[in-house]
């Protein structure tokens, strides 16, 4: 197991180098100029422009800028936003809880509905229930997030008035963040109305963000269940006269969950990607919207360091999933 952990850590270093090269390089490949993007409509004079190019170090060769950036990162300095002048890490830490909170609720929504749907579809294989569930999953997977989000807003928020259009909590609730998680902070303050408001605010964004992972989890659960249900030990369990519910719930599901756990781990990356659109639609103050805004502003420091930080988190989650996987399935660590 220790060797396996070392191997996994060993993979992290080249991955991280790759990520820094990509995030540093891609943001510079986007057409546009950070100085002009930040100077507003009126632009800057040629002399001023030249001055700013030197000030920001954009006159240096790319490799020199890259190594300078890496040097800063290794010292824990992720740079300052060109637009707001605030440290990138400070902004990241303020916004990240919003994304995490949304992602957790989206994942709960996806897992809570996806796994039972997958099991049910596998048990009722070939029936109209199976086809209906998997067809719905396919629709969910293909749903454009932007369109889906707006549809839900118009129906549930504007027309029915059941949920807020956007934001993390009703504007009448105001408290200084402690953890940055609105649901936890409202409880810490003992403000149950605020807690209810935070939950209501989470409903639509969680559904929108969780729809694609839900579809993926449901399909993965179904195929894993079908594979396991054809195994000898399941047949033996049935032959021994065990109840169908016990065979499925205990013998089949336990083994089928192994690839599902991996799939759930991989959905963290999907959630981070989906958060970009979801946060934009729901004015959710998280890192997705922050990164998109920064791309528009050509805020190099935010884009390259923000992406790196997100990648670090995704990698950490995947590492945990892999270790968990190895714990569940000893064959992995032996290989």
């Amino acid at each position: 197991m220790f060797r396996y952990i070392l191997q996994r850590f060993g993979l992290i270093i080249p991955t991280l180098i790759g990520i820094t090269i990509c995030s540093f390089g891609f943001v510079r490949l986007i057409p546009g100029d950070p100085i002009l993007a930040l100077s507003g409509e009126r632009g800057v004079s040629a002399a001023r422009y030249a001055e700013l190019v030197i000030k920001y170090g954009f006159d240096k060769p790319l490799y020199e800028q890259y190594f300078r950036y890496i040097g800063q990162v290794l010292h824990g300095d992720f740079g300052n936003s060109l637009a707001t002048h605030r440290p990138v890490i400070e902004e990241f830490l303020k916004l990240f809880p919003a994304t995490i909170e949304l992602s957790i609720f989206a994942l709960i929504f996806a897992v809570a509905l996806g796994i039972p749907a997958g099991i049910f579809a596998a048990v009722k294989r070939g029936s109209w229930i199976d086809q209906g569930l998997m067809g719905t999953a396919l629709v969910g997977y293909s749903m454009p997030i932007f369109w889906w989000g707006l549809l839900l807003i118009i129906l549930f928020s504007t027309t029915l008035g059941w949920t807020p259009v956007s934001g993390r909590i009703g504007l009448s609730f105001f408290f200084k963040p402690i953890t940055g998680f609105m649901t936890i902070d409202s409880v810490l303050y003992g403000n149950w109305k605020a807690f209810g408001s935070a939950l209501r605010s989470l409903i639509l964004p969680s559904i929108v963000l969780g729809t694609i992972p839900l579809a993926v989890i449901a399909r993965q659960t179904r195929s894993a269940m079908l594979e396991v249900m054809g195994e000898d030990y399941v047949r033996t369990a049935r032959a021994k006269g065990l109840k169908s519910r016990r065979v499925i719930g205990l013998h089949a599901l336990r083994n089928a969950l192994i690839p599902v756990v991996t799939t759930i781990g991989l959905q963290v990356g999907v959630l981070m990607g989906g958060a970009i659109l979801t946060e934009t639609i729901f004015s959710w103050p998280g890192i997705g919207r922050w990164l998109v805004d920064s791309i528009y502003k050509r805020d190099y420091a935010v884009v390259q360091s923000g992406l790196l930080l997100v990648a670090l988190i995704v990698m950490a989650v995947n590492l945990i999933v892999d270790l968990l996987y190895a714990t569940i399935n000893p064959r992995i660590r032996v290989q």
Partner: protein
Amino acid sequence: MKLMKTLLTATALVAMMAGSAYSKQLIFCSEASPKHFDPAMATGGNDFDASARTIYNRLVEFKHGGTDLEPGLADSWDISADGLEYTFHLHPGTKFHTTSYFTPTRDLNADDIVFSFERQFKADNPFHAYLQDSQYEYYEAMAMPAYIKEVVKVDDLTVKIVLNSPNSPMLANLGMDFASIVSKEYADKLVADGHPEQLASAPIGTGPFQFVDYQLDSVIRYAAFPDYFKGKVKIDDLIFAITPDTTARTQRLLAGECDIMPYPNPQDIESLKANTNLTVLDQAGLNIGYMSYNTTLAPTNDVEVRKALSMAINKPALVEALFGKGNAEPAKNLIPPTMWSYDTATPEGEYNPTKAKEILAAKGVTEIELWASDRARSYNPSFARSAEIIQQDWAAVGVKATIHTVEWTQYRIDGAKADRPGAFQIGWGGDNGDPDNFFAVLFGAAAIGTQNYSIWNNEEFEGLMKAGVLETDPAKRAAIYTKAQEVMTREEPAFLMAHSTIYMPMSKKVLGYTMDPLAMHRFDNVDVAE
């Protein structure tokens, strides 16, 4: 301990909000997060809305709904006969905000004025570079370093701004957001505390609202300043609910989550107007959408070609297709009709494709480059759409236009290059209501390489620009800029497209809101129906 402290502070804040349960609250769904709260370093309208127009004041200020100036922190001012000295007499007893993080010990005085300007141009001022990469872009862009020689304290309530050379737009420049006045006492305290950066995150001003809290990219909260020197405003709490997506902003207004919003989608205007719970105010914007011809490269270096190309475009049809009916006015001058010195005598641009075809054929013009960008602007909601319409009009007169679509920031770099061929679509929204802010900024020789996308250097026009800056008599200045419009009409350095209308939808409970031609969003004169 830290958690306990946070909880106590938060409980106090919650209690404060609970105490104001029956207060008058206005929620503004703003379009973007502010970069920070220091207006001297900001460049975006949303930055200024969140700082200059709520928290701060200036020596002179623009009247609501117009570009005329009125007293701000200065009750009056004198300009010396040679136009080189501006002496301001400050309003006595002007208070700075008292907040949880600062309690002022004195009223506003001349030291604050001197400090507010000197930090923008004196490199040895501790606040000149108090944030990493501090920039004072507007101070630079308005050529203030060239004009302002020094800012001198005469006595506690008198301050003098000395210029290097006369500059008639100076007073209007001083009404702009970048010239907001900050507290020197607060700045000194921040330096002593070792946290100068808080000037941009925890602001202290003299304005109608005082800063309460900012949750990054989410909500900004303000409270009415009880000791505001112009009198406490009618609303108690002002909230900026940051909602960048236009559709989400509209839905929030419809759902009653906000009371007022800027920049609706043009296609939503009619449905918003039809909503009985809403009022949609509109006003002619202080803007211009236009298309610059490169006056130094063939074929557009020939004035007859430029005129023929403009003559081939059906301007009213173009404007209606682009903005929707009634959402913009076809332009005949560079400045909008609401601005002083607008020349009503300028003839409407002739639409005559037959004549245009003859001229262009005689000149041998069969191809042209036409530039478009990917970004929507208030003066042109779709460069691509306008380019396609113009392309069709030009095709009808035998000229094949090749459209180049370029990303917005790169677009302006490419457009400003002297070797950029053809016609370049662009536009402008005024800063201060002075005609110099349109003519010289967009077509002056000094703007070649930046915003003079026509690369136009006309001797007569240049002479008028210089005279306009030096002249102090308003009537004579108006005559100068009227003449400048005649020169532009004659020389056609650009095809002048449209002045767009700006809209502001709001709940019917919002009372007294005034539309602003400079696209400022100010709430100091707003009330909310109970």
